[in-house]
Structures are given as C-alpha cells and as structure tokens.
C-alpha cells in the first residue's frame, strides 16, 4: 500500500457475501489493488478494522433490520464516496420478495419469537436510506466491472459501466438470441448489461440479476411473454428474482400479481 493511498472499506448488510468475495476473486490483481488502495476495513479478509472515515466505501447487502437502518446512516457520514455493490444493496436482493408477503401473517410470524428475531418487514436497497454515489449491479457483481470501478477511481476516469441492454453484450459476444431461435423467455432486453450475457451464452434466458434498465419497456416485453402463452403467474415469476424490488420490475410484479409490496400497502393506509 502506498502512503496516502485512498482508503477503502468493505462492509455488508443482509447478503450472501458473494459480492465482497468478488474482490478476493480478482486474484490476479488483488495484490496490485492493495498496493493502490489502503483497505482499512474488510472483515471477511482482514482482522484489521477501521470505523472510518473512508475515501471509498463498498456496501454489500440490503437493509433489513433496525440496526442496519441506523448503521447505514453512520457509514454514510464516514464515506466520501459510497458505492453499493450487488443486487441486495442496489435493489433489495432476493430477500426483498418478502416485501410482497402478506403483511399480517408476516407480522404474526415474527412476533411469535420476538426475542430471537430482529428483522424489518421489508428488505430495501441502500439507496432507500442514504445517498449513493455509484452502483455496481449484479447478483453477484461482475468482478471485471469491480476492477473497472477501482481502475477508474485510481486514474480519475468515468467508469466504463453503462446501462446498455444485455442484448448488446449478447450480440457482441456472438450469442444467438434464445428467445427468437428457441422460444425461451429472456429478460435481456430490459436488463442491465455487465454480466457478459452469460445466461444466453449458457443456452438459457437472462433472469435479470443485473436489474432493470432505467428505460426498460416492460409493457412490451411482458405483453410478448403473455402472448406466447405464459400465465400471469408464470410471467410474474420471471421477474420475481434477485432484483424484483427495483422499478420497473416492482410495478410489473405487483400488476401481474394484483398486489403491491409492503411499502405500498403501508402508504395506502
């Protein structure tokens, strides 16, 4: 580590650890990364700890307990640049599906053992709680995009991380469209690229783990799935994945299911 190198913290909330593991999965660059940045907090990898401040804070995981909701506020105050990494932190993760669970039944279940379990009724992205400076999408994030983010920070470049459709990467890679050639439903047209189109390359449809593109044309794509013979529940399940709580997937799921998530139910009361 160079003296005066930017300090980096890696922290997590509700998640599987896979996104922070992506940093350790940059095996060929790991020692170069620690030579460029001073990693002062990364509990999975080092016993050295730091409460901040951090030049760059990478946050994995969704906010799903009262303690986490308080902690993210403190971390935000310590972070010059706060980057959320992965579907949990950017979209609430797979666990955000509980946001659609029946409110009363859910609460009853939790209060059956209130002394053991501290969890909020919802799992929400970090951006619902604090300002976020940059996001890396994906479940998990792509380690190449993580390296690009760190490289861009190192030289002051805009990270080459764009909100193109998966289709663009898919066609660049020379993969044949699985929807057109095989009739497989694929979320590629409405999903952020970044993964390298691995699902179509593996002969299956994209399941949206890099989250919806901001301009995703949901009515057109869901209309086409329904016209191909899928039931509303079948089509809903396509979007009930790792980024279901991110708009516009969220509204699409609620429309297809005929009920909204927890947050919406509260708002209506």
């Amino acid at each position: 580590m160079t003296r005066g190198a930017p300090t980096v913290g890696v922290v997590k909330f509700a998640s599987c650890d896979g996104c922070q593991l992506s940093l350790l999965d940059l095996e060929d660059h790991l020692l170069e990364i620690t030579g460029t940045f001073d990693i002062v907090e990364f509990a999975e990898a080092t016993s050295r700890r730091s409460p901040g401040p951090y030049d760059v804070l990478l946050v994995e995981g969704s906010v799903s307990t009262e303690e986490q909701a308080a902690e993210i506020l403190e971390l935000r105050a310590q972070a010059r640049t706060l980057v959320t990494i992965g579907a949990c932190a950017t979209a609430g993760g797979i666990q955000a599906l509980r946001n659609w669970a029946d409110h009363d039944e859910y609460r009853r279940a939790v209060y059956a053992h209130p002394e053991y379990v501290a969890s909020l009724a919802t799992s929400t992205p970090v951006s619902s709680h604090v300002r976020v400076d940059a996001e890396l999408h994906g479940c998990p994030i792509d380690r190449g995009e993580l390296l690009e983010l760190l490289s861009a920070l190192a030289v002051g470049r805009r990270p080459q991380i764009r909100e193109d459709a998966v289709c663009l990467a898919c066609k660049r890679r020379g993969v044949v469209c699985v929807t057109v050639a095989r009739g497989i439903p694929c979320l590629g047209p409405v999903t952020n690229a970044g993964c390298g189109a691995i699902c179509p390359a593996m002969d299956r449809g994209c399941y949206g783990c890099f989250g919806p593109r901001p301009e995703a044309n949901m009515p057109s794509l869901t209309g086409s799935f329904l016209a191909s013979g899928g039931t509303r529940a079948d089509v809903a399940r396509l979007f009930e994945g790792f980024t279901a709580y991110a708009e516009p997937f969220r509204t699409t799921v609620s429309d297809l299911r005929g009920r909204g998530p927890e947050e919406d139910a509260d708002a209506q009361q």
Partner: protein
Amino acid sequence: MHSSDEYAERDIDISMLTRVEGEGSLRLRMRDGVVESARLSIFEAPRYFEKLVEGRKPDEVIDIVARICGICPVAYQMSAVHAFEDCFGVEVEDGVRALRRLMYCGEWIESHALHVYLLHAPDFLGYASAVEMAEDHADIVGRGLQLKRLGNDILALLGGRAIHPVSVRVGGFSRVPRRGELDALRHMLDHAVEWSAETLDWVSTLDAPAFERDVELVSLVHPHEYPMNHGRIVSTRGIDVATGAWRDAFEESQVPDTNALHARTRSGTTYLVGPAARVTQCADRLHPRAGAALRQSGLGGAIAANPYWSIAARAVELLHASSEAVDILDAYTRPDVASVAWEPRAGVAAWSTEAPRGLLFHRYEVDASGFVRAAQIVPPTSQNQGRIEDDLVAFTPTMRDASDAELTHGLEQLVRSYDPCISCATHFLDVEIEEVP
C-alpha cells in the same frame, strides 16, 4: 505478568469475528478458570430462504438457493438438483454426473484455497490478513491466489461465472462445454495439482496449538468414490442412513439470541461435518495421489482429533479435487444432450451433498405440478455450531495464563479453523416460526 487472581472472572467478547464468511460474534464467560458459557452468535440478518422458495419451480429453486452463500453456491445447487431428480426419478447421463463432480471440484478448490491461504494461514504466521502476509511471503500467497483462481476458472467454464453459476438444471445442465473449450483449463490444472501438493507440504510445517478432543465425525460415505453428490450419511459412532434421510438421524432446534438453528444427533449430541470428517472417514477413497500425500504427511490422526489441523484436511482435499478434475477432463466426451427431459411428481425431495464445509441437507415438499410447498435447508455451519461451542469450552482452560489479547486470538483462530459460513447458517428461522402454533 498478571496474577491469576485477576482472571477469577473473565468475559471475552469478540463483537465481530473477522476472516469468516458472514457476520457473527463470540461471547465467552469464565469463572475461576472454568468456562461457564460459550456462545457463537450470529447477527447476520435472516433472509427467510425456506419461505422464498415456496411456490417456485425446481429450476427457479436452484437459482434461488445458490444465493444463500456466495462462497459455496454450487453446494446449494447440487443438493437441490439431486433432491429434485431423486424425487422425479430423473436419470442423468454419466457425462453430466462427471461434470457435476468437476463443478464441485472447482468449488472445493476455490473455497479451500480461500480458507487455507487468505483466512486461516495468517493466524498460524501471525498476520492480520493475507495481504500483510504477502509482504513477507509473496510466493506463498501468490500460489494460493493462483490455486483459487483455477477453482473459479472451472466454475466459470461450466457455469458461466464462479459465483452463482447459471447452468445447473434439473436433468443436467443448460449447456455443456465442447471438448475444445476445456483445453486451456486442462493445461493449467497440471499446475493446480502441483500447487496443491506444495500446499500440503507447506501446511505440514505450520505450528498448531496442541488441543485434542474426541468428536463424532459425520460425512457422506460412498463405496467407490470420495463423497460429493452421492453416498450414505455415516458417522464415526455408528450413524448410517440414506443420503435423503438426514432427519432420521439428526434434528435441529432454534437457539436463543441467534438467527440460526443448531443441529444435534437424535441422541442430543454435537457432531462435526466438513473436510476433517470426510478425510477421516474416506481416506481410502481419496485420489491415489492425495491418499499417498496424506499418508506421507502423517497428519491423519491429527486431522481427526485437532480442529486446528483442519487446514491439512483442506490441503489434502485440494490435491484430491485438482487431481480428480484432471482425470475428469482427460476422460471427457461431450454428452449427447445437455439435459434430459423430465416431468414433476408430487412427493418429498430430500438429498445431502458435501459442501466444502461439510454435509448440506435439503428437503422440499413438492406438488404434482412441481411447485415447492415447504422447504428445509440444513447447512454445515449450523450442524457444526454446537460442536464449535463445545470445543471453545474445552479449549479455553488450556490458555488460562494467557492475556486477554492472546486468548482472544486463540479463540478466534479456533473458530476460524471450522471455516464457519455464517451467511449460510442464518436462513432457517421461518420454518421454525411457521411450525409454532
């Protein structure tokens, strides 16, 4: 120097365990040198996976349960896919069966290299992290990273990416590689074998605390192969049940102050799963190269009795997994079809496979359309947790003259030697809640 009086009453509180997967803490209360309580707490937020898979179809479940753990997603996919295939009577092609073992080899290599080199070895050599260790031992850390990378390369080749791979489907894979796609990897795997052998030589030179205890070891045992996806659940004290019949021999209960469930044998005792259990019970089914290396190291007995020597068990399994990966690649012919057709069937889908950290049990109740109606997932760390606490209680008196800092370090190192995956251990609660009237 301290007088021992000062230690009449001691609390050791490690509020955040580092170099483990997930977030947990350790609280130990001692009086007069005797440990009153040891509590490994998990404050990883619950994510309710058993509820999340309800109403989903088998292939969706395979995608979802991978997210329980970013370090061993393949293990979750393997237990789930074998459970469903067993329930539906699906017979996969031999080539697919071999590729699934290859995939597990990849995950074992990745996970074990991570643990041996980045998480555990710094304890033995007195560093806070592998990065700091690299300042003095660049070649050793570099070897660990290269080995880890090759594990990831196997996973990416078969599954599209190393973390949460996408190709595992009921009936086989969504896609299987062409022979030519394996060439680059095959060439590199010779290095993996070499580096794994060096790993075992190297860990054999480390100093581990002298701490031995008698423990029931549990793993799959298969008549012909080192256990991964098939075998019976067998223990060193006489348990022997079918791979799907975990509940016949074990049960789990929720423990106060944690978000996880602890498993016990039906007779209420703690037990240990993982590399030490596998190596001890299945040493004669290791790849000949790994078996020979184990014998030569002379560490077989220490692996069974001393938790710190689990690092050697992982090294042995690194050598096994890289050697078996070479054999699978050399024998590979592309299966005619990536996936065979199947029809759902109502029933109970239950199966166990060997995750890097040990036995991983899945059980799904499935309806006639293939939708999951209820689920139970028992990961290795929740099976080991009771045993870890027992070991902490037994170990602490051996360090009664140590300072708090030294004791803390010793306890942390002991906890880390089990490679606990706390992210895994926290996803059960909902089932328990649902069963409360």
